[in-house]
């Protein structure tokens, strides 16, 4: 995925060649759908939201200032839309209290599959308050790059770092036994 390809396609679309937008769709459909899926956990809805992002991107191509990389602009647009869509119609979620926590960490050590633990952590993230969840989703989506997450969210890096810290704190508080398992192994 090169920034110059995006720029060339954008110039062509703005020049009236709509078919050039297909290149943008092909390059970014995967990342946009996956980002939407991380927000909604619903494949159908993820594709609907990603389609809406492409439409808005098409309408607003002229507003993209060349001082930022196209993908930065596109992800900020997508993040904005996904957040507002999920505020409008929240995704179905399970309560944090519904997440099974073993009474004894040793039992957990013995019985809980790694996959189940991963799933529990993901569900816990999904049930965090929106501002922490969004920061975590964007941070991991951008492969743990705080500046990229901050640009997508339109927030200062310091705010994103604080939200990541607080989000992890809540996770640790909510899943102490799940996350403490390897510690017992080490001990």
């Amino acid at each position: 995925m090169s920034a110059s390809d995006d720029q060339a396609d954008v110039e062509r679309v703005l020049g009236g060649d709509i078919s050039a937008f297909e290149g943008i769709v092909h390059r970014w459909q995967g990342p946009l759908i996956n980002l939407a899926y991380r927000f909604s956990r619903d494949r159908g809805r993820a594709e609907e939201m990603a389609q809406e992002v492409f439409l808005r991107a098409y309408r607003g191509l002229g507003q993209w200032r060349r001082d930022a990389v196209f993908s930065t602009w596109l992800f900020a647009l997508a993040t904005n839309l996904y957040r507002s869509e999920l505020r409008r119609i929240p995704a179905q979620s399970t309560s944090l209290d519904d997440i099974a926590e073993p009474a004894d960490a040793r039992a957990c050590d013995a019985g809980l599959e790694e996959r189940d633990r991963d799933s529990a952590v993901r569900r816990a993230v999904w049930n965090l308050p929106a501002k922490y969840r969004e920061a975590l989703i964007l941070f991991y989506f951008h492969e743990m790059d705080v500046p990229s997450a901050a640009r997508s969210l339109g927030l200062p890096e310091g705010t994103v770092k604080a939200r990541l810290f607080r989000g992890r704190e809540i996770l640790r508080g909510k899943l102490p036994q799940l996350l403490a398992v390897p510690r017992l192994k080490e001990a």
Partner: protein
Amino acid sequence: MERLVRHNEDEINRILSRDDEILPSSGFAVSVMDAVRREAAAPPPIPFPWKRALPGLLAGGFALALVLVAGVVAMVQLGRGATAPQFSVSLPSRMTPILGLQHNLAGAASWTVLALLLTWVSVKFSMRLASGRV
């Protein structure tokens, strides 16, 4: 303790970094391009006719300001009228016209409230019409 926190953070990073990836469905790009072509073919949205609406908006604003001023004046007069009973005790012959004035002002205030309500309803309705929600 610090080691535990570090370990937990690594653990969270490890788990959340390998989130499930999904692939776009086969017709997704085609469907997006169809929507984009429909969008391109659609006529541009009709802009709000500010030039035509401006005189009406100005007249409406002026009328609203007048109503507000009239309302405030009426309230002030009503407030002054409320002190009248002090005099009416010693001057019973003047009580009737003061009560009459109070009655008139109360009527004016209710008309003012009604006018404000009507203005509010018409503005709301126009905005809904303009946004195409009716």
